[in-house]
């Protein structure tokens, strides 16, 4: 394909879009809708993943060391705990450190009052244990409890149900993406098909005077690609608006303010989102465009 043919193809492709303006509008709308549905799902999944990661970090098993053990014995327990499968780390925290940490979490105004009469002697040494696989944490906690001289406290902040829910959302969003991709593609294919129908006589002449198949194909592929690109770009900006609107809504909602720092900001993923939307739009368009004209290529 040389330069002057390229200009010709672009011109013809654009012509094809405007000849059936309404159909083109419909195709672009469908692409926009599909991209936004998929995009919204992905944004939800991304945010859920971030939240789960954060909660996972906080999800720890506490193993209190029995007061009957002296400090050396208490420190020695680490080898036994670390040997338990699925234990990622076991950090020893003395009773003094534990008290300090606890104090730090209390509101300043009430701290002294709440700590009155409490000394580190009231607390026990403990191990703070993190697991590799959170979904097996309960099992791991039970195994640690078997070790002599420790008492385990584990209250899971994330149940197995939450974790499997996360997987379900992820799988649903993949399936949805594939379905919507195919829907958009056929939408473009149909729009381009109308254009090929209008121009069947031209195509007939092109074939009989010896135009190559690729020459005949290009304007339609470009038509599809342009529709897809426009759809991708529009979807990006609409998605941006929707996302920020939804974030604001949630933050102003009583009880959800604490999500403030946790939500992914659109700005941080805008470039990636734009590239994906435009890339997907382009691919959908090219595939849709090529799909339609395949049958014209025989004879």
């Amino acid at each position: 394909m040389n330069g002057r043919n390229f200009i010709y193809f672009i011109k013809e492709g654009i012509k094809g879009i405007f000849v059936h303006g309404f159909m083109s509008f419909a195709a672009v709308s469908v692409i926009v809708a599909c991209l936004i549905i998929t995009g919204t799902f992905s944004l939800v999944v991304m945010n859920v993943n971030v939240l789960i990661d954060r909660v996972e970090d906080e999800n720890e098993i506490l193993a209190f060391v029995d007061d009957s053990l002296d400090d050396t014995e208490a420190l020695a327990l680490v080898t036994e705990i670390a040997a338990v499968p699925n234990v990622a780390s076991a950090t020893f925290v003395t009773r003094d450190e534990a008290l300090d940490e606890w104090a730090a979490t209390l509101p300043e105004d009430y701290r002294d009052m709440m700590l009155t009469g409490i000394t580190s002697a009231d607390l026990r040494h403990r191990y703070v244990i993190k697991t590799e696989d959170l979904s097996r944490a309960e099992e791991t906690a039970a195994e640690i409890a078997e070790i002599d001289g420790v008492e385990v406290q584990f209250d899971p902040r994330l149940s197995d149900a939450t974790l499997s829910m996360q997987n379900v959302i992820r799988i649903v969003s993949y399936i949805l993406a594939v379905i919507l991709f195919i829907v958009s593609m056929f939408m473009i294919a149909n729009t381009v098909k109308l254009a090929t129908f209008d121009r069947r006589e031209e195509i007939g002449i092109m074939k009989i005077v010896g135009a190559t198949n690729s020459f005949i194909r290009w304007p339609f592929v470009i038509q599809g690609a342009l529709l897809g690109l426009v759809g991708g770009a529009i979807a990006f900006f609409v998605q941006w608006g929707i996302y920020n609107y939804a974030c604001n809504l949630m933050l102003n909602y009583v009880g959800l303010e604490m999500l403030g720092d946790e939500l992914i900001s659109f700005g941080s993923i805008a470039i990636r989102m734009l590239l994906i939307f435009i890339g997907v739009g382009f691919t959908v368009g090219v595939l849709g465009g090529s799909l339609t004209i395949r049958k014209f290529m025989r004879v």
Partner: protein
Amino acid sequence: MVVFNNVSKTYANGTKALKGIDLRVEDGEFVFFVGPSGSGKSTVVKLITAEVDPTEGEMLVNGFDLSKLRRRQIPALRRTIGVVYQDFRLIENMTVYENVAFAMRVIGEGSRNISKRVPIMLDLVGLAHKSRRYPRELSGGEQQRVSIARALVNNPQVIIADEPTGNLDPARSGEIMDLLRKINDLGTTVIAVTHEKDIVNSFGKRVVAFDGGRIVSDARDGYYQV
């Protein structure tokens, strides 16, 4: 040059359109194809342009061996052939000039070549003064001239006209055939399918007669038999 060696064509529905055709058309010849409706004339045309494949036999068209022709080579073959149809097949929303230029444009010719060559062709067919008209503003004879200009513009070795005068009155028909003869005199091979006895007889050119999918006569300075 067009060579058929024992060529048969049976369509998918079982119709035996051609049965063992042997034919040789030399470069520079003018040949009429005549014969009753359904005798296979248009099938020969479609075989030459590779719109249909032969069921049997060997074919050579302008140096292309059609039995070995790959799909991707078809455009190259077709650039050596100019086809003229009974119904003109002009594009309605293009001017006369654009219709002819279109044939060059779509095989990748540049605009400099196009603007040089299209006027020459329109002049040859006597339509230079109507280059900005649309097909609907022209008579049938004029539309057929445009389609002849389009067939010629890429400088083919052979022009094939399938009943080019089928939609025209006798006077226009004579003019179109005269134009084809002029083109032949300029060196292009011409194959014309026709039912016009008077014209065939007055031209004194080679006449190949078809009937029932066979060639029933091939007369060098022939006239319309049957």
